[in-house]
């Protein structure tokens, strides 16, 4: 795969030299930052520990809604399935991975926020999830997000979810740090936290796994737009990704994938193409 990339890059280099040769020196502007459009292989960052979205099996393969969407979008970008390398990322490493080039795209329950947009270009969103709260089955005291006041809330590093609660909604919950939502769910069952508040898709995946031990309070309080993380400024890739997402909803793939991964969780996913963020 390394070799494929090298030859593409050198071919792109040759094309650039050729293009320069036929341009007047005064007239030819630099064609913007380099784009991943035209690459023959891609490294895609996905979550490794979120059932239903991005989960690494013991054999090292990745599976989930995000992974399938990534495959679809990559195919529309002309990437052969065996030329995709999935790379595990966490909420805390997504921006760095894109900035230092260790991944080309990120599909990892990556909510588009204005703050992140200062560092990352977002294609999509390819889905709009809603933040909700999960508690232990027997806990009936927490009915909506405001009941988290004074409770211990799991806070995943790099995630936006806890900020929504304690900063944006100003709810005085006690934050207990964690590195991932799988750790949060374990802590919830161990009674080290009282609640896990994050996107319904993520919670649904865990709830399906934990069976009756975890309950989702079903009081959504935000729109979380899952974006395709792309290196800041790669507008060509962003526009191509948006076209791919449009096609995914138009040809029924989106509905089929949502049904495949969340059909049994009781969620009623929206199957209309979301409003894109825009690339510029």
């Amino acid at each position, binding site marked *: 795969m390394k070799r494929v990339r090298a030859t593409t890059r050198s071919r792109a280099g040759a094309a650039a030299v050729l293009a320069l040769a036929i*341009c007047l020196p005064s007239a030819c502007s630099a064609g913007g930052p380099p784009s991943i459009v035209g690459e023959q292989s891609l490294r895609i960052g996905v979550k490794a520990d979120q059932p239903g979205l991005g989960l690494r099996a013991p054999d090292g393969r990745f599976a989930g809604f995000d992974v399938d969407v990534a495959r679809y979008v990559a195919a529309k970008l002309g990437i052969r399935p065996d030329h995709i390398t999935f790379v595990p990322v966490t909420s805390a490493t997504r921006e760095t991975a894109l900035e230092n080039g260790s991944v080309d795209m990120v599909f990892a329950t990556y909510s588009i926020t204005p*703050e992140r947009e200062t560092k990352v270009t977002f294609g999509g969103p390819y889905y709009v999830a809603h933040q909700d709260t999960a508690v232990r089955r027997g806990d009936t005291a927490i009915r909506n997000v405001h009941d988290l006041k004074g409770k211990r809330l799991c806070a995943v590093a790099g995630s936006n979810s806890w*900020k929504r609660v304690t900063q*944006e909604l100003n709810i005085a919950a006690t934050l207990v740090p964690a590195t991932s939502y799988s750790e949060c769910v374990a802590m919830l069952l161990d009674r080290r936290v009282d609640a896990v508040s994050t996107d319904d898709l993520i919670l649904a995946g865990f709830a399906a796994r934990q069976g009756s031990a975890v309950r989702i309070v079903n009081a*959504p309080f935000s729109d979380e737009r899952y974006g395709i993380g792309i290196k800041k400024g790669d507008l060509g890739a962003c526009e191509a990704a948006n076209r791919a997402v449009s096609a995914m909803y138009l040809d029924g793939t989106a509905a089929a994938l949502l049904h495949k991964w969340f059909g049994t969780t009781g969620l009623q996913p*929206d199957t209309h193409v979301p409003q*894109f963020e*825009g690339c510029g």
Partner: protein
Amino acid sequence: MLATATPPAPRQRPGRWWPTAPVRRLGLQTTPGRIRALAAIAVLAIAGFYIVANIAIGNARDGLRVIGHDAGPQVLATGDLFFALSDMDSQVANVLLTGREHDLGTRQQALNRYSQERATADRAAIQAAELSASNPIDQATVRSVLDGLGRYEQLATRAMVLNEQANHPAGPPPGHVIAVYRQATDLMKLELLPQAYNLTLEGGATVREAYAAKRAAVLSSRLWVALVGLAAIAALAGLQFFVAARFRRLVNSALALATLGLIVLSLAAVRLLSGEAAQLQAAKTGGFDSILTMSRARAISNSLHADESRFLLDPGRADTYSLAYLDKSQTVLYVPSGNLGEYHTGLSAAMKAYHANPRTVSFLGFYGDEARAHPGPAVTSILTRFQQIQADDQRIRRLAGAGDTQQATTLLTGRTAGSSSYDFDQYDKAVVSLIGMHRATFDQAIRTGDRELGQSILGNWAALLPLAALGAVILVVVGVRARLAEYR
């Protein structure tokens, strides 16, 4: 030393560095043969010039068409469509909020505005459909928006009828009214608005691609036009000198005229292409980029203003609408902030710095881009009014937080100075006026580009070019025919 190292010279006539066999086959050893050959080279060079100039002008025409006549106007039409749809939903929310307090005088105004926006949406949709005639997917999307709009109107009407019957005081209506409104607003937010907004973005992407490709093509083909033009001029000059030397004449007037014609034509073509590239650039970076940015800012602004109404209308979703309001505010004008309170503080600080020195653009988002790209009073006016609608929002939320929803509703829906809807209209007018300014720059550049392509002494370049090339070829033929006749 050298002489001994040189291999034996091939059998060749002395003084000829070229192989003699093809020369003889083409008859190049005779004067008429050489004249014919030189004339053929000149004609080929003229034909080459015609071809590259034609391609170059085609590139310029394509660029102008996509940017100026298809995707560019499409962005404006779909931007209007989004605004009209979003404002319809906003007005429905206002009608439901005012309740039986008809003396607020605002209910009828909201209803009138609703009908106006309905008509605007229709017009914009028809325009968008016409502009996307060549793109079946875009056309299907516009149709789908119109279909959805029919369903939306049914739901909105039902919500308003139920609301009338409920006869509630100003503020949130009863639950069964909210339930119907939720269906309507979800349809709008999840189906109609995304399609309209994505069409705007797609238009923007098409323009960006066409600009990058076509401007580069115009510039590189300009070089080719210059090179091939020079080659043709050189070939004509060569022929001229050869004929003058062989026939001891000073000038061959037909050839001289052809040369002169080609010089003028080459210069005019290079100048035209430079002009076209400049107009494409002016249309794109001087007009279109800001039109797109400001159209998006206008769309998102209307949608955040609607979220303010929905926040009051639907307490069950108040958190969602508050968070969406913050996200959208930050999209329009970004200052680092964790919540609305911090946002308002950050906004005040950023505005203070900006008013002290308009070059201090410490904020990002749409208005950050615009204030950096086109500083001036138009942007300042928008920023001042944006700050005003944020101040209104703060007051509304404070009243709502204190439980005074009636006062909050009055402040939100009133259409007199000092109320949120009035201030929002003033703000929107400032945005529309800036879009209009950029539109004028854009239209001017496209018009100039079109005019230059269509204008020359002989009319359209498309007509001038083949005529001029043909004329030059005829002159070459005429010029050499008289000389060749001397050999018959």
